[in-house]
């Protein structure tokens, strides 16, 4: 390469959606012949950054240089022609077309204006052979495994662009052998001088394949480091945004009162589901907040899905008040007095077109059964009381849910479950994407509910949040419950140590 400039250099990239900052002055540099991992929890801004680099979004601030020349790709096609190709996790190719058709869609070799299928077949074969793939290119893409499709997608992207390759969670649905196959392809491309950006949340894979890592958090750059010089624990602390330091808990007196001497009325033992979460034991006592910590993809949400019956456990038992129960569906979970606020508020939690009152009444209605509708007067009374007690704004029960802010939507979902007077409430990332004021209010509410004797399971990637409210913290890694921290042990430091622990055994 003649010039000394980096392959891709982004400076001070900023982006806001509807006034909410998604990326704030992020720098990112990609060298030739480098595999660069991009890490961060959900909402950290990874995908926003990638979408800006690949022309899906336009940036509000900052500059972007490709081989020293300033570029502003306005579309995926333009980024592609500049040399930046992307492979998305799922939606990347067309399953109804053949492998060859996918490789050459939009640039089929032609003779006399008609597509030359023979030539297309030959070129496809030659192209894939460079990736060590010898397959029937005239077979439908859907007849091949995800790994093969992934490689076909990479082959197309590299053939089209040839400078920068962006991989968005390429390994999410691959097994270990397929991951290795994919990585050997990536290493070969690195040798050819390509710059590769890989988004993943599997730390082992980051260490296995990447040269450098850039960590984002809450839309800001945490840092870019060489992986060879970066201990795993430090990487985790970068991701979770917590300096390594010993902090003392503020409300230790409190958890002493929740002495573990009392018999737990809600018990899960050997509870698990193959391919989702390894079997775990969990006792939940009244007035107790159980925190669930772990990195993205460690099985946090899957644990919640199991507890609430969204996924069916294939091993273990659940006991409520010494009575064995089958939590085979959310309905059964509700019947046992459970409630669940999901992480994906917009997709799983709210019904945007329904009014606030209807949304609040939903779970009560579900518990009563559809045969006994709640009268509109009851519904109004219910909504009225919660709008007041949770301070949901605007205090208009007839407002459509989608017009509320994130924090108020979250409160309305809480209200929905509180209306059923649950004994166990599971909160998955209750404070994600809401402003600081509402954040504090929700945490305060959690403490109050627990003081009233309710049990809570809180899943969060905010360690400070967990250490502030949880009496116990379950730590997850690689879809296993690997540690349980109690009382004084509940510190951000200990949680990170626990998450990093498996790496040490691997390294040894």
């Amino acid at each position, binding site marked *: 390469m003649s010039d000394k400039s980096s392959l891709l250099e982004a400076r001070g990239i900023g982006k806001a959606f509807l006034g909410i900052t998604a990326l704030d002055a992020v720098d990112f540099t990609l060298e030739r012949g480098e595999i660069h991992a991009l890490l961060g929890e959900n909402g950290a801004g990874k995908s926003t950054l990638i979408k800006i680099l690949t022309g899906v979004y336009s940036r509000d601030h900052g500059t972007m240089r490709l081989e020293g020349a300033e570029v502003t790709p306005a579309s*995926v*096609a333009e980024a*592609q022609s500049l040399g930046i190709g*992307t492979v*998305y996790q799922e*939606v*990347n*190719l*067309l*399953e*109804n*077309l053949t492998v060859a*058709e*996918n490789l050459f*869609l*939009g640039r*089929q070799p*032609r003779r006399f*204006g*008609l*597509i030359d*299928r023979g030539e297309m077949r030959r070129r496809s074969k030659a192209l894939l052979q460079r990736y060590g793939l010898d397959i029937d290119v005239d*077979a*439908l893409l*859907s*007849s091949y*495994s*995800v*790994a093969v499709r992934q490689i076909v997608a990479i082959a*197309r992207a590299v053939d089209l662009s040839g400078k920068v390759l962006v991989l968005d969670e390429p390994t999410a649905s691959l*097994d270990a*052998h*397929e991951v290795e196959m994919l990585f050997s392809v990536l290493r070969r491309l690195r040798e050819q001088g390509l710059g590769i950006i890989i988004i993943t949340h599997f730390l082992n894979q980051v260490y296995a394949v990447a040269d450098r890592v850039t960590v984002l958090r809450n839309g800001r750059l945490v840092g870019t480091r060489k992986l060879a010089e970066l201990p795993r624990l430090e990487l985790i602390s970068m991701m979770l945004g917590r300096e390594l330091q010993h902090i003392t808990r503020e409300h230790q007196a409190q958890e002493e009162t929740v002495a573990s001497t009392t018999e737990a009325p809600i018990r899960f033992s050997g509870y698990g589901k193959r*391919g989702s979460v390894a079997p775990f034991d969990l006792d939940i006592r009244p007035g107790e907040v159980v925190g669930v910590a772990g990195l993205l993809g460690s099985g946090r949400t899957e644990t919640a899905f199991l507890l609430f019956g969204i996924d069916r456990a294939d091993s273990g038992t659940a006991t409520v008040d010494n009575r064995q129960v089958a939590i085979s569906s959310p309905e059964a979970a509700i019947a046992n007095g459970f409630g669940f606020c999901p992480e994906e508020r917009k997709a799983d939690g709210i019904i945007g077109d329904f009014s606030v009152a209807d949304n609040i009444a939903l779970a009560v209605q579900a518990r009563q059964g559809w045969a006994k509708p709640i009268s509109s007067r009851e519904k109004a009374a219910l909504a009225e009381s919660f709008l007041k007690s949770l301070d949901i704004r605007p205090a208009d029960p007839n407002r459509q849910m989608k017009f509320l802010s994130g924090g108020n939507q979250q409160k309305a979902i809480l209200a929905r479950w509180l209306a059923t007077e649950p004994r166990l409430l599971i909160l998955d990332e209750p404070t994600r994407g809401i402003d600081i004021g509402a954040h504090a209010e929700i945490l305060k509410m959690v403490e109050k509910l627990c003081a009233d004797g309710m049990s809570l399971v809180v899943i969060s990637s905010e360690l400070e949040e967990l250490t502030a409210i949880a009496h116990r913290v379950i730590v997850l890694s690689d879809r296993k419950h690997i540690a349980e921290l109690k009382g004084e042990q509940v510190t951000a430091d200990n949680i990170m140590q626990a998450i990093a622990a498996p790496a040490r055994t691997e390294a040894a």
Partner: protein
Amino acid sequence: MIHTRNLPFVTTLGIFVIAYALCVLQFPNMLSTRVIGNLLTDNAFLGIAAVGMTFVILSGGIDLSIGSVIAFTSVFVAVLVGSLGVHPLVAFAAVLVISTLFGSLMGAMIRYLGIPPFVVTLAGMFLARGAAYLISTESVPISHEMIDAIQGFYFRFPGGGRLTALAMLMLLVFIVGAFIAGRTRFGANVYAIGGSQQSAELMGVPVGSTTVGIYALSGFLSGLAGIAYTLYTSSGYSLATVGVELDAIAAVVIGGTLLTGGVGLVAGTFIGILIQGLIQTYIVFDGTLSSWWTKIVIGILLFVFIVLQRGIIWYSNRRLAEGRLKEI
């Protein structure tokens, strides 16, 4: 080995061959070039329209305006030629331009206003039918030496059958249609959009111009079908060809094209047309059956094919899942 992709087409072909063989067993006369020639001529306008419909359905859309556009075209041509004395070629050119523009407009609304094809083409259906009534509510006879010449032109098969100009036009449309679908970038883009519009867009397919092109093509072929219909009946009538779009959809689906888009062949639609024609011919030969039996048999066939398509999707998904399990 047959790829699962072509399974519906092969099934259709099999059904046609078996059905034809059964018909011939009962009425040996059905195996004559005369019957085949008539079958092609009688279904020429439907076949031409069905080619356009094939592209629309392959892209995951639907075009309900076809029957109305055919009626509009036939009335428009009949009035221009029959009442106003315009030369047929000028009239043909004029309606083809109008119907193509009409189709492009619908395509543009579907793409750029994000309105579902069902709604847009439903509106197009009423609009074209209304415009046909506006021109004339009565049947307009048409007579011109050129039209007579076209109607009188045919090749004679051995055995007395006639390959008429209309039948040749339809065959030509099918051949060109098959080339466009299978051997041009436009055709590949149609399949891509039908597979997944989002993925196609991410892969750089010009979804906008392709969508407009698909409905323009369907509009053009509806206009051409209208001309064929005018030549076939020597008249234009605004009440004619009600529901022809549904016959065309039936031919496309029986021909093995997935209603969800992305999978299918123009050749399959040809077989679909032949099967419909075969049923009609059988009813004529039998002489005692009500012609409504055509609809009943088509209905049954449609059910069979939709179930078959579901079955194929279910089967290939299961196989995929099993393959994945094995890998794990």
